[in-house]
């Protein structure tokens, strides 16, 4: 063989990480470099907070907390004390313990609904984007039907028919998020399907299913995930709004939204009952959004021309 590996200069080992030089498409677009984004300590803060919340949620039963479901009539509307770090709620239950346990339900709703919606919507969107034609038309119709149908009615109906429960709430929210995921993943699929590696895969005889699973899905996952991330935050807030309408997670299971809604009547007199869960929810959703937004930004690494 006249020519051997000459692409990597022998003197220096090829850079281990993504060589910025190779990351840029060849050709005349050297500007596609990430912008200097220094010291995003907000980013670390957000992750730390989320990590703490998730850990607390996961290990809640193991933590030395008050029982979140057992009332303590001496602590009704209780203020902050060394025993009750965030005071007590309308039944005197320890707010701190309830906030920690509430993280479980709230995060579960957010995560499960998004994952479910993303999986179903993402899959359908890929099918629509890849196959086009009738598949796409039927899905477009379905999408429009769901979008044109007030989501609240759907949730009310679901809760009324199947009963209020975490599962049903998750299903309802997932259904509502499906159209957006369909559109998102369809749009991403259209972009990916135009890329030549898809044509290449067809050229060596890949079946459509394999192409979708192995070639398209990995590329659609990221934008879908970035959006899903943000939707987790949205759904946590939505669960709160539903609690207001009596459609949230049924008691005594604590959820942040439910706690805020429960303390609402005391908002003027004992604001801390709503305030603490609201603050925790606020920080969490803020962190999720922040992280989601930055994750999304990772894809757009161009610099302004202005």
């Amino acid at each position, binding site marked *: 063989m*006249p*020519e*051997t590996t*000459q*692409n*990597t*200069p*022998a*003197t*220096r080992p090829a*850079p281990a*990480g993504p*060589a*910025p*030089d190779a990351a*840029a498409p*060849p*050709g*005349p677009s*050297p*500007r596609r*470099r*990430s*912008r*200097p*984004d*220094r010291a995003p300590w907000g980013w670390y803060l957000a992750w730390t907070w989320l990590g703490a919340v998730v850990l607390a949620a996961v290990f809640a039963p193991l933590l030395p907390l008050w029982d979140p479901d057992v009332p303590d009539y001496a602590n009704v509307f209780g203020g902050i004390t060394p025993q009750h770090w965030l005071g007590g709620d309308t039944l005197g239950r320890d707010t701190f313990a309830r906030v920690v346990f509430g993280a479980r339900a709230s995060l579960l709703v957010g995560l499960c609904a998004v994952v479910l919606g993303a999986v179903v919507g993402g899959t359908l969107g890929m099918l629509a984007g890849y196959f086009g034609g009738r598949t796409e038309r039927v899905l477009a119709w379905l999408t429009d039907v769901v979008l044109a149908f007030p989501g609240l009615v759907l949730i009310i109906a679901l809760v009324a028919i199947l009963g209020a429960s975490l599962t049903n709430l998750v299903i309802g929210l997932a259904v509502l998020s499906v159209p957006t995921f369909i559109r998102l993943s369809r749009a991403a699929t259209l972009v990916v399907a135009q890329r030549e590696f898809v044509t290449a895969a067809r050229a060596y005889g890949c079946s459509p299913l394999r192409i979708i699973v192995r070639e398209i899905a990995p590329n659609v996952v990221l934008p879908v995930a970035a959006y899903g991330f943000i939707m987790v935050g949205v759904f946590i807030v939505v669960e709160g709004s539903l609690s207001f309408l009596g459609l949230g997670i049924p008691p005594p299971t604590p959820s942040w939204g439910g706690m805020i809604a429960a303390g609402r009547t005391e908002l003027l007199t004992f604001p801390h009952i709503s305030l603490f869960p609201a603050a925790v929810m606020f920080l969490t959703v803020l962190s999720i959004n922040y992280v989601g937004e930055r994750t999304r930004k990772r894809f757009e690494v161009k610099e302004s*021309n202005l």
Partner: protein
Amino acid sequence: MNAAPTDRPLLAVEDVHVRFHTPQGVVHAVDGVSLQVGAGEVLAVVGESGSGKTVLTRRVMGLVAGSRGTEVSGTVDFDGSRISELSGRELSAFWGAEIALVLQDPMTSLNPVKRIGAQLTESILLHEKVSKADATSRAADLLRRVGLSEPERRLRQYPHELSGGMRQRVTIAIALSAGPRLLLADEPTTALDVTVQAQILDLLAELQRERRMAMLLVTHDLRVVRSRSDRIAVMYAGKVVETAPTAELFASPMMPYTEALMSAVPPVAGPNHVRLQVIPGRPPNLLDPPAGCRFSPRCPYAQDRCLTEDPPLRDAGSEKHRYRCWFPVGSPAWAEARARNAERGASAAGTPVTEEMVLS
């Protein structure tokens, strides 16, 4: 060509550096470049992708300025004024009116949602006190000048309704609208077809001659500038590695990179199935540029010295022909280095030296 450099060059670039701070490290995109362009002269800047041509032109124009992530140094003088020290607001007085820019990709350099006419008259109105109607007729004239048929109709069209070549003509018309004295053409034909590329280059040459405008013509293709420039500067990894009057450069390239660049292009005359001379390896990583001569890891003639010492820009006989190399092509030292590397089958950098790299 009709190069008539006056004593004071129209554009003088002295020791310009541009560094970008990225999360991965510092990209030293332009590394001490000095250039002069006289009025009416065409200087071609040639180099591979990533060699810093675009950044250089933008620095010259002032579009790249020092900021949080960007560090610049060196001076740019335009007709006696030190434009490298002007603020953005002051610079915009030069932009369009004195210095104009034509970009590589005509598909993206026009605003897709504005009519051609609006984009053209906008820059006329910005620089001159004329009525809207006058500006429109001036715009039509300009379009006619750049060879577009039915200019009045074109003014009402949107960019997507024009072909690539037509759009590039429009961008040239916009660049010329305020009669600039220096035109920076950053790869103006890369995105175009051969036939159209030739047309556009002809057009630029013609306009430049006619207006005695100085031009900095940036390209990655040495051949493209063969007949269209007075002087050529070859860039590699942010540095000018060789600069010479066009004919001289083609006749006797001193820098092995220039030589390699010329012979890597498939010839259009002679037999086919010619084994091409390759430049091994890949363009340098600007985050971590090689020590010594930046071309040394890829150079078939590299010696130990090349790996450690960065060669200065040296004269090759005349002031006008300068290069950076310890072993300039054609010199006895070069012949020796070449023989040594051929013998050991590798350059001092360890790059295998094969037949096809030293074919000539």
